[in-house]
Structures are given as structure tokens and as C-alpha cells.
């Protein structure tokens, strides 16, 4: 595999999304949405979190619900940002990475590329490009929330920066397996819309099937859900996962999804 060609693909993929009209519209919508969220929700919620009347009532409840690690954060803005980001970035990753390979395959553009690069280089390059796009979106929003934290001036800057770095890596590791799963679906779907439909369909079907098996046939097969990305979302939101659960499982999932994607992509006709 040529690292240089894979990096050329990731750079082109990054440009393909962000420098195209569709990407620019997405970026503007994203900025507007986050401006609204930060100003109207995160900022006001942080004020609420700082009032002792509220915290005396709500903190014990949050602790009961498993959110005690979040309560310890020095900047309340980041707590609300974390919750909103954990809800929005996985969804954003699904929509942004829906067209990694499929439209190029359907249009025949992929043929021009496979004359000059291996399918593995294309696949890895496109995947990395999508990871960079998500990282870019996460960084933009984290930077904005950091500005908000500094503006409110009630938390220490260094602690906030450290916390923002931690949040960034946690969010990134949340979306990476989703992007890899979308890469896998891209190898057999024919359009971005179809990829998104397949994603939700697969998630739903696996959950229903495993639920039925667990109810009627074999108990304790919940671990089978690990074939899906982001399966332990609630525990991840509570920061309640072990080190292996936080970092190991998403990395293993990503490698497995990409390996299956490569097998399928290598044998598919272009």
C-alpha cells in the first residue's frame, strides 16, 4: 500500500466535502446550528448549573443516573456541550460519510481511480478523509465552546483546555467506528441515500433480532450487539466505560469494519 496515494485520497475527500457547494452549505448550517446551541442552550444551561438552588436538587439525581463523572467537570458549559455533541456528532458522521465510494462506483469514476491506485488505498484514503472531516467539525465546535467558557470566566483556562482535549478525543473515538461502518455499507450500496437507509435498517434489525433471541431463546447474548458501532452509547455518555471499552472496542470495531469493507470492495465489479 502506498501511504502517499492514501493520503492524496484523504486530502481529496476532505476537499470533496468541504470545498464543494454541498459541503459549504453543510458547514454554514453546522456553524449556525452550533451558534444557536451554544448561545441559547449551553450558555443558559451553564448559568443554571452554577446556581446552588439547582445543583442541590439536580446533582444527587444526576449522580444516581450515573453522570457523577460529568458533575466533577470544572466547566458546566462543557457538560451540556458533551451531551449535545454526543447526540449530534454520531448522526453528523452518518450523514457526512454516506458517500465515500457509492456515487463514484455508480458513475464509473471509480474506474479512473483504480487504474492509478489499489482499492485498499482508495478505501483507507476515503475513510481517513471522513475522519478528518468529523475531526474538523468537532474541533470547530469545541473551540467555540472554549471561547464561551473563557468568556464566562468562571473556570480555569488550563483546566478547560485540558477538558476540551479530553472531550475531543472521546467524541472522535465515538464517530470513528461509525464512519468505518459507513465505509463498509458503501461497498455494496449504490447511493448516499441508500447507505443512510441501510445504516438505520441494519441497526434496527440487529437490535430487534438480538432482543428476540435474548427474550425467547438464549439469555445473555447482548454482547452480540458489539457488531454494531457505538453500541454502548449511554455508558460512553456517562464516561462510565473502562479504558478498553472507551478506546479498545471502537478501534477493534473500526479495524474489523474496514477489513470486511476491503474484502467486499476487492471482489466487487466496478
Amino acid at each position, binding site marked *: 500500500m502506498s501511504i502517499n496515494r492514501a493520503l492524496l485520497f484523504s486530502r481529496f475527500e476532505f476537499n*470533496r466535502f468541504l470545498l*464543494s457547494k454541498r459541503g459549504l452549505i453543510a458547514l454554514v448550517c453546522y456553524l449556525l446550528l452550533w451558534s444557536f446551541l451554544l448561545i441559547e442552550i449551553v450558555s443558559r444551561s451553564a448559568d443554571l448549573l452554577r446556581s446552588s438552588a439547582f445543583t442541590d436538587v439536580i446533582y444527587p439525581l444526576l449522580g444516581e443516573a450515573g453522570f457523577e463523572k460529568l458533575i466533577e467537570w470544572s466547566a458546566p458549559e462543557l457538560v451540556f456541550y458533551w451531551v449535545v455533541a454526543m447526540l449530534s456528532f454520531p448522526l453528523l458522521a452518518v450523514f457526512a460519510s454516506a458517500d465515500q465510494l457509492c456515487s463514484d462506483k455508480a458513475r*464509473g469514476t471509480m474506474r479512473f481511480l483504480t*487504474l492509478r491506485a489499489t482499492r485498499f488505498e482508495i478505501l483507507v484514503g476515503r475513510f481517513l478523509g471522513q475522519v478528518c472531516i468529523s475531526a474538523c467539525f468537532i474541533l470547530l465546535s469545541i473551540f467555540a465552546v472554549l471561547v464561551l467558557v473563557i468568556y464566562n470566566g468562571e473556570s480555569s483556562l488550563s483546566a478547560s483546555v485540558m477538558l476540551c482535549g479530553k472531550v475531543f478525543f472521546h467524541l472522535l473515538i465515538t464517530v470513528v467506528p461509525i464512519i468505518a461502518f459507513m465505509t463498509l455499507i458503501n461497498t455494496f450500496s449504490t447511493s448516499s441515500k441508500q447507505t443512510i437507509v441501510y445504516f438505520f435498517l441494519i441497526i434496527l434489525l440487529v437490535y430487534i433480532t438480538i432482543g428476540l433471541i435474548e427474550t425467547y431463546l438464549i439469555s445473555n447474548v447482548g454482547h452480540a450487539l458489539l457488531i454494531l458501532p457505538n453500541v454502548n452509547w449511554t455508558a460512553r455518555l456517562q464516561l462510565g466505560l473502562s479504558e478498553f471499552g472507551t478506546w479498545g472496542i471502537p478501534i477493534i470495531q473500526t479495524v474489523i469494519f474496514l477489513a470486511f469493507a476491503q474484502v467486499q470492495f476487492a471482489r466487487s*465489479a466496478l
Partner: protein
Amino acid sequence: MLLSVENLSKSFGDKGVLKSINMEVAPGPPVALIGPNGAGKTTLFSIIAGFLNADSGKVLLNNSKLPSPAQFGQIAVLPQDAQLDPRFSIDKQLRFFCRLQGLSARQSEQEVSRVLELVDMAAERKKKPQQLSHGMRKRVCIAQALIGEPRLVLLDEATAGLDPIHARSIRELIANLAGEVTFILSSHDLAELERLCERVFVFSDGKLTHYLNVNEASDNNKVLSKTTEFLTLRTRIPLPEQYVSELEAMANVQTVSLTQNREYLIEYTKTGDPFDISLLQFLHGHRLEYQQIYNGKTLENKLFQNEMP
């Protein structure tokens, strides 16, 4: 050998599209792949280019198995019906292809200018594919096949959909580059292939049925003596029966057969006297106008001689 195809087979479901194809192409003048729709030409192109996996057999380029990263840039293809990304200018996309082929940013810029000039598209380089006509898009796709220094270029229906002027310029381009690059062309335009190609592989129903050399006048189905030759005569109007009989009665003429409307294949014995001069005198003497006298059989007649009336 530049290209070797060994026992190549491919099926879609239970339909065999390629059946144990064996062929070899040495570097040299353009090669034609001919056959009816569904004969397997495009499938063969797709397997050579790596777009499809064969069920069995292999393809070798310079004795190395294809597809292989080592062969990137050595083999170029104009795929049938493939389109460039509509979101980017052709300049950006071709430069990206150059970069993938290992050229620097500056070299890529120059290479894109070179290949676009070859297909008369340099003025359109900043446009996006959807801003171009079908013919223009096709020329850009031909340009991408000429990036770098490919040894082998496969062109599938290269001039289909082009206007006559640009079809001609593409033919001239192929003829001019034929000394440096070996082209394999697939087309239904036999006149075009006849002009460009010396070597012809004929496919039918997934099989390579025969190989022809356009410059050889020999008949595949008959054992001919070394002195038997052919002329193909095209006239402005159909020849009256009496003139056909007179033609047949000319010295050294063996047979005269009507191959299609106003086209006659004359088989004659080569002697010291030039037969073509005698034929011209015959036509002039009878005030018969002709359109073309072709030395030998046309490619069409070579291919379809069994279906001749």
C-alpha cells in the same frame, strides 16, 4: 510480449461471457477487437483494466500479472460510459490523476495542459464535466488515458458519440501516437478500425473466433494460390448485369461477386499486367463512374464473407 491473456473465462450467473480466451499482443500498431454486442469485448477490457475479476485465467502485462500496483501508469483505459465527478473541474480531476501517478504538483499542471491540448480541450479545463457536451466529456476521458507514458491504452468505443471532425482528430491522434503506445480499440465502426489497425481479434459469443491481419489479402476460408488477388470496387450506381458479365469475362478475372449494394469483390489472377489499370480502362470505356477501388478485401468483407450474397 506486451499483453498476454491466458485461458480467461468469466460468467455472469449461468451465462458465459468469456470462454477460455487466449490472445497475445506485441508492442506495435493498433489492435482492434471486433464482435457483435454481447461478444465479450467490454468484459475483456474490464478484466484487463482490473474493473472486474475473472473466474479463471490470467492477464499479464510485460509478463507481470494484472492488476498490480507496479503497472499503474503502464496501462490506461477509456472505459465505456464512465464519467468524471461532476463536482470538480476537469483540471482538478486530471491533476489529481497525475498526482496519483506520481507526478509533482508542477509536473501535473504541465501534463494536464499537454493531454488536454492533444484532444483540443485545453480551453475548457476550468469547466466542470456537466458544463461540457457528451463529445467533449469523451475527449476529456481520452485525455486522462494519455496521462504519463502508458505502454498500453485500451479505448472502448473511443469515437462513438463524437462529431465527425473530432472523431477524425481522435483517429489522427491515435495514428500519431501509435509509434509510442500500443492501442487496443473496440468499435463497431469497421471503416475506422480498418484505417487505424493492422491486427484484428474477432470475438463472437464470448469466444475469440479468429485473428486477422488487415494488410494481408488472404482469404481465411479458401486455400488460395499465391497469385490470387482481390479488388473491391464501389460504383456510383449498381452495375447492369451485362457489365458484370463483361467484368467476369475480362482476362485474369476469376469471379465477380456483389458484396453489398454497389460494391463488387473481384477475384483475379495476378500476372505481369497490372489488373487495376485494366479495370480503370474498362470503367472508363463503358463510362461507368466509380467511388472507390480498394486493394484487397475490405475488413467488413473479410469478417462477413460467409454472409455475402
